[in-house]
């Protein structure tokens, strides 16, 4: 048989089976809904017909039995009870398995005759169990269904692009005309006209590209429904196995998300739902004892929130008890005693996200194997989503997932580091800060910076990524750091500089680079070069053991090499001036010279020096007088002054000190050491 017909049948069967499954579950709640029964009847009938046409007897026979059963229900000859619902569900399961086997070209995985015989006996037939949740592992396939409208619009936009290209071509020929200069050199007016026309074209081109991009991206979007459709059944089966009664309500399942996102969302939902049924929801009697309805409700609600989608999974079960969670975490060695005491109630809830945590006292079939929320967490990080928990003991548990709308375009901050450019999704970026040496504190051998009252670990992005360090950027005395946020944790990563933020297109690295630490993907920058998109969870994971930035040390060295202080040297002798100047400069001081007392007074008016070195005997006012005059100035009252003189009598030393000088050096004993020592003792 031609595979074309098989394909068509498979797709059709899939649709009918899905609506059959969903419809039967609805029927369970609304047993008197005749319209619904009729609809189901139609599904079964169509399935029977198409299967028979292609000779798929198994499917057609099962569909036939279901059709009969539904007909009896429609005519009121048979009650819509639990047993009937079970038979219908089993029947549609069996057909799904048969169709699946057809798709894979395998023989059916159960004996169809036995199944039919059981149906005919009126039993609820068994299929060698391989629950519906197992077969849903296979992704979404390689094909998408697109609305004809979308395709039309894509084609239209492409047409517009072609027109735009023609327009640009005509601009080129008019430019050629201008350049050839047949009518003399082009006038400014002509050039201006040309510029305006070109600008219009580019503007329109930009608009077209945006539209096209949007439409193309939309092709990647699928409604949430594509994954939630099987959940009714899953929850129902799980609950029944445990003797619980649960209703699953789904709101906003029409919200569209990127298909890649949906694929990774599915296992998350499975975990959250099994968790809720297994741990959250009490047995009916217990619920009634607490004044709650016997039947529990799990509600999945999805809604748009800005550029993201928020999905809330809420159950009205027993809630999460912080004390019990702490105990369990302690028992499993997830935390130690001290940590337990420090944790608040809300923070305790997040312990359930840590690997190796599970509160279920007994290891059950469905959950409680130490996997669960941590898996959700991990998958969520991969798609740049966040998770938050809320619970009221005895009343409810709420898990909120915040997801980006699409994975293919994200808002990212570009940073330069170690000669490369990296992109960091802004959803993780709290802010960028400038860190000065004095902002860095060493705690237990690790460097931290204070940020509005909290301390944030500081690591160097380049050393984390194993790139060559670029110390010369310390010259300004400041480094740029990007403060990243992952859940409640903060991390400051130093970078060479940040290059602004913008939307980037996310590209996968291809099969040769299956999983690369620190790298989430890549994008292509405006200049055509690629830039890696950093995986922030990886940065957090590796920052723990990372070496310190060494910035404090580097800053200290810098400090030593840096200008130590500004000194004014006053002397009428060029030899003395030059000598003193070179001694001081070679030891890191910044030196200016004045040739006389008057010159010095002029210089101090504009600049605040840290120290003044002056001769005594100079033309004009002498060193003592200069000292006295400086002391009168507000800005120089406290500035140290050293008098250097050939006058060695005690009388002169006394005069100098009276005038307000801090030190007196006799030129005869003058050597490098004395001057430097004195300067250092005064201003360091």
């Amino acid at each position, binding site marked *: 048989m031609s595979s074309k017909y098989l394909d068509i049948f498979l797709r059709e069967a899939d649709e009918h089976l899905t609506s059959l499954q969903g419809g039967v579950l609805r029927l369970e709640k609304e047993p008197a809904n005749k319209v619904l029964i009729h609809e189901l009847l139609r599904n079964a009938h169509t399935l029977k017909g198409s299967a028979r046409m292609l000779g798929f007897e198994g499917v057609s026979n099962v569909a036939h039995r279901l059709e009969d059963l539904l007909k009896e229900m429609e005519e009121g000859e048979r009650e819509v009870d639990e047993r009937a619902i079970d038979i219908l569900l089993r029947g549609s399961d069996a057909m799904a398995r048969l169709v699946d086997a057809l798709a894979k070209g395998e023989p059916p995985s159960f004996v169809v005759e036995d199944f039919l015989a059981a149906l005919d006996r009126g039993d609820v037939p068994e299929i060698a169990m391989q629950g519906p949740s197992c077969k849903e592992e296979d992704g979404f396939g390689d094909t998408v269904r697109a609305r004809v409208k979308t395709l039309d619009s894509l084609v239209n936009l492409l047409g517009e692009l072609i027109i735009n290209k023609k327009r640009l071509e005509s601009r080129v020929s008019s430019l050629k005309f201008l350049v050839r200069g047949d009518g003399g050199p082009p006038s400014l007016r002509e050039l201006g006209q040309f510029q305006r026309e070109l600008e219009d074209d580019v503007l329109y081109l930009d608009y077209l590209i945006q539209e096209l991009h949007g439409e193309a991206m939309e092709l990647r979007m699928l409604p949430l429904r594509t994954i939630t459709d099987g959940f009714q059944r899953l929850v129902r089966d799980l609950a029944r196995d445990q003797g619980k009664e649960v209703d699953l309500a789904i709101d906003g399942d029409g919200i569209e998300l990127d298909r890649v996102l949906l694929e990774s969302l599915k296992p998350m939902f499975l975990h959250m739902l099994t968790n809720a049924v297994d741990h959250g929801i009490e047995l009916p009697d217990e619920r009634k004892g607490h004044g709650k309805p016997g039947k529990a409700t799990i509600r999945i609600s999805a809604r748009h929130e800005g550029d993201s989608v928020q999905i809330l999974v809420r159950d009205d079960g027993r809630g999460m008890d912080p004390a019990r969670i702490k105990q369990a975490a302690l028992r499993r060695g997830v935390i130690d005693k001290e940590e337990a005491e420090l944790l608040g109630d809300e923070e305790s809830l997040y312990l359930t996200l840590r690997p190796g945590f599970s509160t279920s006292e007994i290891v059950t079939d469905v959950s409680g194997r130490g996997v669960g929320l941590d898996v959700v967490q991990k998958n969520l990080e991969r798609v740049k989503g966040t998770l938050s928990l809320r619970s009221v003991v005895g009343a409810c548990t709420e898990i909120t997932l915040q997801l980006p709308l699409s994975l293919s375009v994200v808002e990212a901050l570009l940073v330069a580091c170690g000669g*490369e450019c990296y992109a960091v999704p802004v959803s993780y970026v709290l802010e960028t800060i400038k860190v000065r040496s004095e902002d860095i504190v060493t705690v237990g051998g690790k460097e931290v910076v204070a940020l509005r009252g909290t301390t944030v670990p500081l690591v160097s992005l380049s050393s984390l*990524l*194993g*790139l060559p360090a670029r110390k010369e950027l310390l010259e300004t005395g400041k480094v740029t750091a990007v403060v990243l946020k992952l859940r409640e944790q903060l991390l400051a990563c130093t970078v060479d500089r940040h290059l602004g933020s913008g939307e980037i297109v996310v*590209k*996968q*690295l*291809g*099969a*040769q*680079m*299956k*999983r*690369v*630490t*620190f*790298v989430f993907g*890549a994008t*292509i920058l405006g200049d*055509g*070069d*690629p*830039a*890696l998109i950093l995986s922030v969870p990886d940065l957090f994971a590796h920052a723990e053991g990372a070496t310190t930035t060494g910035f404090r040390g580097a800053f200290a060295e810098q400090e030593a090499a840096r200008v130590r202080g500004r000194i004014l040297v006053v002397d009428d002798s060029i030899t003395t001036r030059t000598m003193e100047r070179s001694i001081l400069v070679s030891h890191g001081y910044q030196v200016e010279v004045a040739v006389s007392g008057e010159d010095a007074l002029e210089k101090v008016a504009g600049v605040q020096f840290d120290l003044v070195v002056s001769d005594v005997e100079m033309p004009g006012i002498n060193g003592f007088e200069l000292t006295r005059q400086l002391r009168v100035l507000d800005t120089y009252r406290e500035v140290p002054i050293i008098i250097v003189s050939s006058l060695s009598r005690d009388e002169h030393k006394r005069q100098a000190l009276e005038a307000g000088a801090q030190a007196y050096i006799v030129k005869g004993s003058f050597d490098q050491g004395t001057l430097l020592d004195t300067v250092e003792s005064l201003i360091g």
Partner: protein
Amino acid sequence: MGEENRAGYNIDGILKEMRDEYWQGLEAVEEALEEQLECVTFALGGETYAFETIHAAEVLRIPRLVKIPKVQELIVGVFNLRGEIVAAMDIRPLLGLPQLPFGPSGRIIVVKGEKFHTGLLVESIKGVAALPLDTFEVAVKSLSGAQRDYLRGQLQLSDGLVILLDIGRLLAAPEIVIDHG
């Protein structure tokens, strides 16, 4: 009659001979074709290497390569191949060859693998030619295991030795894949 017959036989014989010759000639051409391999030849570590042209998608000047943090030495970086992110490999360490700098004649040969495209950095491209296989020798015994894994053998040509890379083995090597699990 007899003569005619003889002549007739002779004509048949001649025709048969001609046919045989014709077919032999064809076979000879086919054999000669089988003895040649269409290859791209290039320099690696100063030696001449080659692999079949069908594996090569295109040759590019070496673009800017963006380094990937903490990966094996032979993955030099990634580059933009018309919107696709492709790795560039320096396979010389794998073959035990010296890593001479890639000068202005350095190129990237984009290789089509089953699962991925990858870029092979080479010191220069020598050309594309049908190499005669009559001097083909299988990989030398003296080579270490790792080197021999990726080489099929060598050809002694008039203008020197050409070493034939086993590109299939190379692309299947786990050493060239980054998988930090």
